[in-house]
């Protein structure tokens, strides 16, 4: 399907391209001439420099001083002009915030990288990194955007704005330069969190698309073409795929059945909504949740925000005008969790036999399906899949084919993502989601402390704690409980491990539902081959 669309699109753009073929050819010789031009320019420069030197000597500046000044100028110019890839990379790296003495990882995981932190406000990168990327990486690192698919879509949307704002530098072509430009953006984005498998797949696809853009296409048209392609990708690989998956998976949810799910997955959330709003099913949903992200709460909140009335066709989460018009006629549409979905909310530690006794089916989200049939997903998934498998409860997973990876992995230790250990020390009473401290602010505070070690620090700390005291009395008690681990980084034998993912063996999974059909996990490599070949 997509290929047809793509070829059609390329054909459509071919026509203007041919007309421009002549122009691009005519540009080429000038490029060749540019080299000789450079030589000419340098000659002229030397002449000028000689003139100036003569002038300055006349003014009373020695030639040695002149040389120094000239060199300094040259260096400055070089810095400005040398916007090569390596140079940009260096600049990006220079903005890394190094916190070397405070990194504590268990020896078993020392091969994994901790999250790099970059100083967003550093002026050296402001001209390299697009502001949209800055805001996206902030959202990702603070878990505002979490989950493989939401991260993917938001990244592609941001890429669209970057491409729109992109201007090809004078001496290169879009096909050559844009990939590099995007790489720098991605490099920065990685500092928020490592890329997900789906993001990696999409980036690979996008780079390929960029390289396939005909050379003679005008910049503006090439950019619109790319944006269209990205839109198509989102539509085809995510939205339509999800719809196919949901239609397929909804067969497993019958009236009155009990479904168990873990955390939050976008496609599963849509599935549960679809079963109510399109199929009028009533079922019990066990939401299993865990620290520190509490993604189950997010699923619950999103379900609560979905209103539905059996009679009315309109399904709107936040469409106020419709709601008010309905309310004037009859009863208000209620949240679907009131009448249709009976929610049982538990934390993972209570997943003992009593809860699993009457579960009919388990739906799990996926971060990636690995080539050896293992499911790479939010940490805890493996535990649930194992327990349900042992009790003969079918375990299903819904996974778009963008999440398929040709990597193989055997256990969760060799490759994983390390999250911030501090997340496990905050929010002990489950009141709010983990908050990310602003890195730049922290850095600034540190400098502040260095400069004036005593006086100004105390008031800032007080300012921090005071509002807490006023709002919540428990907070204070909380901090008292926290105290044994307050400076855990200075306790030599203590480590806190907060990994993001784990690996579920294929034998626990009954079925993987993708847009290409439902298959056993052992068929993942088959799909990968088919997918690559097209």
């Amino acid at each position, binding site marked *: 399907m997509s290929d047809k669309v793509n070829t059609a699109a390329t054909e459509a753009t071919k026509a203007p391209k041919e007309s421009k073929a002549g122009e691009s050819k005519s540009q080429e010789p000038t490029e060749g001439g540019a080299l000789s031009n450079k030589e000419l320019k340098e000659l002229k420069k030397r002449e000028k420099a000689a003139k100036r030197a003569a002038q300055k000597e006349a003014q009373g500046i020695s030639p040695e001083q002149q040389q120094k000044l000239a060199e300094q100028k040259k260096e400055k110019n070089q810095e400005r002009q040398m916007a090569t890839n390596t140079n940009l990379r260096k600049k990006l790296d220079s903005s890394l915030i190094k916190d070397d003495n405070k990194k504590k990882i*268990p020896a078993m995981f020392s091969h994994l990288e901790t999250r790099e932190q970059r100083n967003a406000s550093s002026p050296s990168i402001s001209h390299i990194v697009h502001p949209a990327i800055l805001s996206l990486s902030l959202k990702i690192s603070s878990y505002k955007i979490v989950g493989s698919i939401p991260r993917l879509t938001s990244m592609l949307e941001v890429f669209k704005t970057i491409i729109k704002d992109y201007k090809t530098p004078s001496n290169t072509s879009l096909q050559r330069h844009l990939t590099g430009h995007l790489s720098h953006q991605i490099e920065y984005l990685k500092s928020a969190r490592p890329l997900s498998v789906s993001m990696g797949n999409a980036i690979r696809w996008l780079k390929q698309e960029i390289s396939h853009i005909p050379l003679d296409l005008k910049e503006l048209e090439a950019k619109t073409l790319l944006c269209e392609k990205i839109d198509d990708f989102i539509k085809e690989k995510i939205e339509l795929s999800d719809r196919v998956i949901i239609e397929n998976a909804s067969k497993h949810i019958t009236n009155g059945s009990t479904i168990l799910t873990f955390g939050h997955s976008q496609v599963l959330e849509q599935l549960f909504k679809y079963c109510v709003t399109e199929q009028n099913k009533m079922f019990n949903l066990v939401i299993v949740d865990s*620290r520190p992200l509490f993604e189950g709460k997010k699923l619950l909140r999103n379900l609560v925000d979905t209103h539905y009335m059996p009679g009315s066709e309109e399904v709107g989460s936040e469409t106020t005008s419709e709601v008010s018009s309905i309310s004037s006629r009859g009863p208000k549409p209620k949240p679907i969790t009131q009448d249709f979905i009976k929610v049982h*909310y538990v934390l993972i*530690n209570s997943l003992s036999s009593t809860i699993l006794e009457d579960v009919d089916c388990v739906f799990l989200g996926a971060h990636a399906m690995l080539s050896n049939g293992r499911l790479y997903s939010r940490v805890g998934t493996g*535990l649930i899949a194992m327990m349900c498998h042992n009790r003969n409860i079918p375990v299903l997973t819904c996974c778009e084919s963008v999440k398929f990876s040709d990597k193989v992995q055997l256990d969760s230790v060799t490759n994983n993502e390390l999250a911030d250990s501090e997340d496990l020390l905050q929010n002990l009473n489950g009141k709010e989601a983990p908050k990310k401290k602003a890195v730049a602010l922290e850095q600034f505070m540190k400098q502040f402390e260095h400069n004036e070690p005593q006086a100004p620090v105390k008031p800032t700390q007080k300012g921090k704690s005071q509002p807490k005291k006023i709002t919540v009395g428990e907070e204070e008690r909380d901090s008292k409980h926290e105290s*044994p681990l307050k400076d855990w980084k200075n306790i030599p*034998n203590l480590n806190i*491990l907060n990994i993001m993912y*784990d690996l579920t063996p294929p034998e626990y999974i009954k079925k993987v539902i993708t847009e290409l059909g439902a298959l056993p996990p052992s068929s993942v490599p088959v799909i990968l081959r088919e997918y690559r070949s097209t």
Partner: protein
Amino acid sequence: MVDNKQLKPEITALLNPVVDQLTRHQITGDKTIALEISHLLMRVISATRWSNPYDLVNTIRQVGVVLQAALPREFICGNIVRRVLSIIRVEIEENLELDPNSESNTMMSSIFSLLSTNNNTVKQESLIQSKKQSSDLRSIIIQGIRDLIDEIINVNEGLENMSADLIHDNEILLTPTPNSSTVLQFLIKARSKRKFTVLVTENYPNEIEQTHKFIKKLADNKIETILIPDTTTFAMMSRVGKVIVGSNTVFANGGCMSNSGVSNVVECAREHKTPVFAVAGLYKLSPLYPFNRNDLIKVGNSGKVLNYSDYELLENVDIITNPLNDYIPPENIDIYITNIGGFAPSFIYRIVLDNYKPEDNNLE
């Protein structure tokens, strides 16, 4: 308030403050409860007057019923009462054996005893002691309870001696019960002979503060400690050498009660063929069988699972559960380490028989 008509007022006066404290959960921790109960029973025994020693047995049984009602989901009270009862019964039987007319009753534990008629009732009526005899019995029983108290206090010593046999150098251990002082003492003792790493699960939401204190203590004792969230057990289990579980109650079938979430961990361990050993003092062994497993689970404050301030979510949720403990079936435990040695779960019934009298399994 205790309103047991059969108990004498002087005993209810002794009982009331303890029962109140138990029902208010002012006495927490298995060990403290056990010690409190044994001291209480000592006081009860010294306050009771009897001519027939079986009157004393009946009084203690009634006290046991009251104590069990105070903490219906904890088995410690019942265990201690039964231990004391067995001390009393052993003494009475010894006295009877001195008496040439009485026949010994050693077959109780075997299947044949099912067929034999219980002639205790006859004995009970016939057995009248003089004042001298009863005061002798009293001092012997109180000495027995003193020994029991010593055993409870020094429970860790017997356990600790086995640590070196069970842990090898550079081993990675995992413990899902950070509120157990027995596990803590066991690990600290093991550190003196071995160097190892301990993974500790968070046990959110009920024991998280205790967990933090626990890992701080471990780290202070130079044990390499890693805190992991409850979800991470499956991911880490492939690297774990042994799982150490603290238990609240060990049943006669070899199953035990422990913190909520432990059941997940031991199931994980079985899946990975990782050995699991449970540590338990002898006083935690219960002669009861867990026939109704779901009834054993205590449920706690659900506000810890979904905070009450999230009222919007709360009113849309049908059920929220916060179980405080878990039943662990015997097949998920490889070995029990007690203060008198290590035993397979299948052998626990035998140890139970050594310490309790089957007549007292049902106190009512």
